[in-house]
């Protein structure tokens, strides 16, 4: 759609169909024309990929002073005085000719083609094509369709050879596994022999295919486009927060597709996100509450389940209640549960993370970077997180683009090589537990004269030079690369960066979809909603909530330990599966066994909820409206497209139901009211409500008023002013924040004056809030826990994740379930030589806890003295090896007899 906008200052005046159009400098004719309201038909051109000028559909007559000539408008930049005729006889003849050429071998099996009804070839044939075929010969025949991966099928008869999928695979995903083969009339897209198109991003090719040549095995013959109802939402498979469209038919989700938004996903999705619709429609979805009867969980009525849960909670003291999870809920769900747990039950034993993330205060307190800031053209990125290709795939695509196309410099520090390593200017693999020391050397003012964390001084110094050279602000991506390494090590590294580089901005690389939202909403010990510490926010919330916890509570590890010791009466699992996800499996098992009553809220039964006493069926993705917060802190909408199975209901509603049974009214009747309360009370979210979120097409960055100027534009002049702008911005932020707090307080007072019944409820005492909102948490570097001395015989464990694992949602998404790769013990080839083992040999990996037997695989991407295993894969439970209290997990490797 053409958007009315002021002509750019350095615009280029061109004439399109006799009308003057001001194009941007360097803008392609096809784009300039479209902005001006003249759509030029095209098949191969895609605005997120390099043009190839291959399909020839966009030929138009262009006159640059040497007479009109047919030129592909997708390859031609606008030049001053260019005269373009998109409607001339020559243009029309050429376009009709191209369309006829495309159709002569096209099978025209539209009635049985998934694309029929939303097919650019079909649409353009209606708009431009000749009515009859002059082609008498027999069409090309190929076997149809052939699977090119587990998820994508290729029909070469339908293919019009536009190079979109192949370009995507090579240019965008960096997985050039599909290519043209043969030539001329025999040209076809195919894979290499015995090399499937096993890309994490393969589904994007289905979306961008302009015909039905590429179809998804999850969607084939499932629906017709004209029967689909579509709603835009945000993907919740990881915390990148890709915008997504949900298509449903007959009240059933049929498929997801990427929506192009500039600051986040550019239209791309990973296959896990795209094909996770199976988990929504899974026959195993919980549609009614369950309660334990002996060894079995049996269905019951809601009144019964809720009453059992309420009575368990009623009987428990605040200190004996623990709430784990919530990072997969909506912001509204998370707030409602924070309010129930902290404001009604009075417990601070609440943690949305499962011991595999980073402390909430640190995550919320660090200056935040957006994805665009991290991917600033020519910028410098210090990557201290898990493999983004495995955990945050679309962030990987953005980083890849930044490096490959926009000359960003990437310094990767990870405990083993990752999908990013080949893109990094420097990729360092420190010994587990010693990342802090390495990062300190990397941001130091002088070269290191000795090896650091097992890395040669020369390599450290080369990487240090790259970081020191950065002109703009340093971007840091910070996460937990290995759960077998204490979070303290990562915090130590972050502290080193903060101390040395005050300009550094951080992008948290925590994987669960709404982990940042859950932390924002106070689902962490010692925090209240709105990024405030418990003690700082106590007065602010005291008047609004029935109660506020007396002191800081336990995190997940603490709750599980307390439960194992019999000190937890009620353990609530908010969509959490500690048995699968908590890094220390033994502790998780003892904790779950030790808790007197376990209440689980979930959409599907998982290992942990199977052991629960009460299971409350929750509405899941696409079944409830709300908002979610991605890793940048960007709040965007989640939409309801279908009704939940059975009588499953949103988590916030379950919190409200339980609160009512406990004699408290949470004070909201729908998700919008929850958000309104968040916008009224949570200091970081002041001013947010449904209208503000809905109005922000790209989502809202919080606190309001701190939305940074876009940096992804590649504008060089703008980069120079970056530092100044940042300084101004932070000043402005302070002002805005204060102003907003005042405003909010004023609104509050007004609201109270005209208080309706709900607000006058005794559960929410209507006292005046404190005049100014409490300060937001800030980062304080911790003290790293000591790492044991190097032991020449021990291997330090690196425990990472793969995109596909035994996780409940992956396993419930039928087509993804089989893609979990399993794990081998990966060790450095020199270690393999030392142990006398070769690839495929079975070894025993022994920790103080237990031992596992699995095949070994030499891998130069693993540092010497370390062993890399993949979490949550079939057969091998790596979490059995890990001791949550240890700073690193040390293992011995023996050959299996």
């Amino acid at each position, binding site marked *: 759609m053409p958007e009315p906008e002021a002509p750019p200052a350095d615009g280029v005046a061109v004439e399109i169909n006799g009308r003057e159009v001001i194009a941007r400098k360097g803008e392609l004719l096809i784009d300039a024309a479209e902005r001006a309201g003249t759509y030029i038909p095209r098949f191969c051109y895609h605005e997120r990929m390099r043009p190839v000028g291959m399909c*020839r559909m966009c030929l138009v007559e262009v006159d640059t002073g040497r007479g009109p000539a*047919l030129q592909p408008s997708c*390859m031609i930049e606008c030049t001053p005085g260019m005269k373009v005729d998109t409607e001339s006889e020559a243009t029309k*003849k050429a376009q009709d000719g*191209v369309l006829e*050429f495309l159709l002569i*071998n096209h099978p025209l099996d539209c009635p049985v083609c998934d694309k029929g009804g939303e097919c650019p070839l079909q649409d353009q044939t209606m708009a431009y094509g000749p009515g009859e075929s002059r082609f008498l010969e027999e069409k090309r025949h190929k076997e149809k369709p052939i699977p090119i991966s587990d998820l994508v099928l290729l029909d070469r008869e339908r293919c019009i050879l536009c190079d979109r999928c192949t370009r995507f695979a090579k240019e965008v995903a960096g997985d050039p596994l599909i290519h043209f083969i043969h030539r001329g009339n025999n040209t076809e897209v195919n894979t290499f022999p015995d090399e499937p198109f096993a890309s994490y991003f393969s589904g994007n090719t289905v979306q961008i295919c302009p015909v039905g040549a590429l179809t998804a095995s999850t969607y084939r013959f499932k629906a017709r486009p004209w029967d689909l109802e579509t709603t835009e939402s945000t993907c919740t498979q990881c915390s990148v927060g890709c915008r997504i469209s949900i298509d449903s038919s007959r009240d059933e989700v049929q498929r997801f597709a990427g929506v192009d938004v500039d600051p986040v996903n550019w239209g791309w999705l990973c296959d896990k996100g795209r094909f996770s619709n199976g988990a929504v429609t899974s026959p195993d979805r919980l549609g009614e509450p369950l309660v334990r009867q002996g060894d079995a969980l049996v269905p019951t009525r809601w009144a019964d389940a809720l009453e059992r849960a309420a009575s368990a909670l009623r009987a428990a003291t605040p200190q004996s209640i623990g709430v784990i999870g919530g990072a997969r809920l909506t912001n509204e769900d998370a707030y409602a549960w924070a309010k129930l747990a902290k404001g009604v039950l009075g417990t601070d034993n609440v943690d949305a993370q499962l011991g595999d993330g980073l402390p909430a205060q640190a995550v919320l307190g660090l200056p935040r970077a957006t994805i665009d800031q991290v991917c600033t053209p020519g910028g410098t990125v210090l990557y201290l997180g898990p493999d983004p290709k495995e955990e945050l795939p679309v962030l990987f695509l953005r980083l890849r683009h930044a490096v490959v196309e926009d000359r960003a410099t990437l310094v990767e520090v990870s405990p083993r090589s990752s999908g990013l390593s080949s893109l990094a200017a420097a990729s360092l693999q420190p010994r587990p537990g010693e990342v802090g020391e390495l990062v300190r050397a990397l941001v130091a003012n002088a070269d290191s004269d000795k090896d650091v964390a097992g890395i040669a001084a020369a390599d450290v110094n080369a990487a240090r030079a790259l970081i020191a050279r950065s002109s703009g602000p340093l971007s840091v991506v910070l996460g937990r690369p290995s759960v077998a390494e204490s979070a303290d090590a990562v915090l130590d590294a972050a502290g080193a960066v903060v101390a040395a580089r005050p300009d550094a901005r951080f992008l948290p690389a925590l994987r669960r979809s709404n982990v940042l939202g859950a932390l924002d909403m106070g689902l962490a010990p010692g925090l209240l909603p709105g990024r405030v510490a418990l003690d700082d926010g106590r007065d602010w919330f005291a008047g609004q909530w029935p109660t506020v916890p007396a002191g800081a509570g336990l995190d997940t590890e603490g709750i599980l330990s307390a439960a194992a010791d019999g000190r937890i009466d009620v353990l609530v699992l908010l969509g959490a599966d500690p048995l699968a996800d908590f890094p220390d499996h033994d502790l998780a098992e003892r904790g779950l066994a030790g808790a007197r009553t376990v209440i689980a809220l979930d959409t599907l039964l998982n290992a942990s909820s199977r052991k629960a006493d009460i299971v409350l069926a929750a509405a899941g993705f696409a079944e409830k409206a709300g908002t979610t917060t991605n890793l940048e802190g960007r709040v965007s909408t989640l939409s309801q497209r279908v009704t939940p199975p059975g009588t499953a209901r949103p988590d916030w509603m379950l919190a409200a139901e339980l609160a009512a049974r406990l004699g408290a009214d949470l004070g909201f009747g729908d998700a919008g009211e929850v958000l309104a309360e968040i916008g009224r009370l949570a200091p970081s979210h002041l001013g947010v409500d449904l209208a503000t979120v809905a109005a922000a097409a790209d989502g809202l960055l919080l606190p309001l008023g701190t939305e940074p100027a876009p940096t992804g534009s590649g504008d060089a002049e703008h980069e120079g002013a970056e530092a100044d702008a940042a300084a101004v911005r932070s000043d402005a932020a302070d002002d805005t924040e204060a102003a907003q707090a005042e405003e909010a307080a004023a609104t509050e007072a007004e609201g109270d004056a005209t208080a309706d019944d709900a607000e006058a409820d005794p559960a929410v005492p209507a006292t005046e809030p404190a005049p100014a909102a409490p300060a937001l948490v800030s980062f304080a570097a911790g003290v790293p826990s000591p790492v044991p001395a190097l032991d020449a015989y021990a291997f330090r464990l690196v425990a990472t994740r793969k995109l596909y694992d035994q996780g409940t949602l992956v396993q419930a998404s039928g087509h993804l379930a089989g893609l979990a790769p399993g794990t081998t013990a990966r060790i450095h080839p020199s270690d393999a030589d030392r142990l006398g083992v070769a690839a495929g040999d079975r070894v025993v990996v022994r920790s103080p806890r237990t031992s596992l037997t699995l095949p070994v695989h030499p891998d130069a991407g693993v540092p010497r003295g370390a062993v890399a295993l993949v979490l949550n894969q079939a057969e091998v439970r790596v979490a059995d090896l890990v001791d949550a209290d240890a700073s690193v997990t040390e293992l011995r490797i023996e050959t299996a007899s």
Partner: protein
Amino acid sequence: MAITDAPKIITSRFGYDDSHTLTRYVSTGGYQALRTALEGSPAALGEAVKAASLLGRGGAGFPAGVKWTLAPADVWPRYLVVNGDESEPGTYKDRLLMERDPHQLIEGVLLACYAIGAGQAFLYVRGEMALAQERIAEALNDAYKAGYVGRNILGTDYSIDVVLTWGAGAYIVGEETALIESLEGNRGMPRLKPPFFPAAKGLYMQPTIVNNVETLSNLPWIVNNGADAYTALGAENSRGTRMFAVSGHVRNPGVFEVEYGVTTFRDLIYAPVYAGGIRDGNEIKAFIPGGGSAPWFFEEHLDLPLEKATVDKAGSMLGSGAIVVMDETTDAVKACLRLVRFYARESCGKCTPCREGTTWLERILQRILDGHGRPSDLELLMDVSDNISPGLAWPPKQTTICPLGPSATAPIASALGRFRDEFEARITEAEEARTSVPVELKAPSHA
């Protein structure tokens, strides 16, 4: 008749059995031009070649000395790419130059590199030319050993590497941007010009000069004898000598080096020293003057000189210097199909009109030959051709990136234009057969 006694410039060593060896090359004045040039400046060498008005011999006939100046100043590195992917139907002159006088080519490459300031040259030889590859490899090894190529050649501070590489048998790689793609390890598909003019954004997006084998082989002689000696030969806009490959229905097919722009088609086709006339005393029906892509010429064109501008004006081109002669026994429909089929099979598959259109044309022609033609087919042939090359004009316009697609339409326009009656006869025969005897409909064969 203008059969001149112009000296042999590039085929002078063809008479020796050991013409490909370094010994023979050096003993016959080889690498003397390199020594001379290295004593002067690159600019002087460039000027000399410009003054010689040496036209490119690959097909387009662009002045080589001018081409050298097209690389943007101060962008380094820049490369020389030698287009040895000679594959235009009827053309086999570069192959002989590579097989019989590889050192002459190498010396030409070194001169060009010195003139444009390249430190690296890539010699791309057609995949099927095994002997040429072998001989160039041997010659390069010898030249490296003798110090003509490599670090500080001939004791100067000029260093140059020449890399030999070869294709995998795709006609399209003779197109310079496709050749560059292939050199980079990609599928040989042309790039759009603009923006990818090789001189500006060529190999690895660096300035790249792409020269033809015959063009470069002229350089040593020009340096040794001077631009004046070169321009003394040939016609006003076509200087020096040029190699023409004559094939088809002639008594004595072969490659002949003749004075450029002076000798006529009639000389070349009929003179006993050249092709020796039409076989079996037959009459000439048509001839292709410049490789398979060129519109056909007929009897009335025989007295045109082999001169670029004249031939261009007459509606065809000298192209790659390949003259294919067809005598009166030739079936115009079959000849047309034979050429169209070549382009259909060699289409790289990138642009829709060429990929789909050339094969469609081939199948219509095949259908006409098979006795399944319809009267509307002639109109269809012309219109499909028009959708590949709008207006079927000369020089051709194109809806494609490179001229391969339009090349397939040239024989159709020529054959249909001149021998429409032969096409119509085929179709009428078919019509009559259909109406008199019921025939079983069968799918046309596409042999």
